């Protein structure tokens, strides 16, 4: 399945791009996608799928938009 990933802040800098489409095997979760990309486990990211905050255990589906959310700093 193909997942659209958009990157922000530290994750964008670590990944060196704004977005990409990645093909994952069925059963991949938000958290396992993060690990599969080799992103640092020390960074405490949260996960959003299709604009909603979700647990890392959430299974991804074809066409999902996935975002890793490093600690936010708005306001």
């Amino acid at each position, binding site marked *: 399945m193909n997942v659209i990933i*958009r990157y*922000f*802040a*530290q994750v964008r800098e670590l990944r060196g791009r704004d977005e990409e489409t990645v093909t994952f095997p069925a059963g991949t979760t938000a958290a396992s996608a993060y690990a599969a990309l080799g992103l640092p486990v020390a960074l405490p990211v949260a996960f959003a799928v299709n604009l909603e905050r979700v647990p890392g255990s959430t299974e991804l589906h074809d066409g999902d938009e996935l975002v890793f959310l490093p600690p936010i700093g*708005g306001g």
Partner: protein
Amino acid sequence: MVELSPHPIDVRAVEAAVAGIDCGALLSFVGTARDHNRGRVVTGLEYEAYAPMALAELGKIRAEIAERWPGVRLGVVHRVGAVALGEPAVVIVVAAAHRAEAYDASRYAIEELKSRVPVWKREHYADGTDWIANRS
């Protein structure tokens, strides 16, 4: 009015969008980029947003306020991109019939914004930059 703006925020325009003669209390919170933070001299800063989700979350916060405090109106604008020191980074305006609900709703909006809305801040210093997370 719920917006992300790459330009300086016109606080008066946000107030005009939510004020009304039925509202006895207008409360405007302006959060401004400071020249010092956590003991370091800040020379500039920038905000980056996951825009569609940030706008969706701000819209949810506005709906939550309308449900919890009926008749209370919220306007909120957050800057994105480079922000000069002393410029508003976020403006939250609440119009309400009575002051108690104005204070409660305004505080709710800023606390929820700081914990839920996907916006990131990078501070610039003489010797580098840092992403600054809100303390929980």
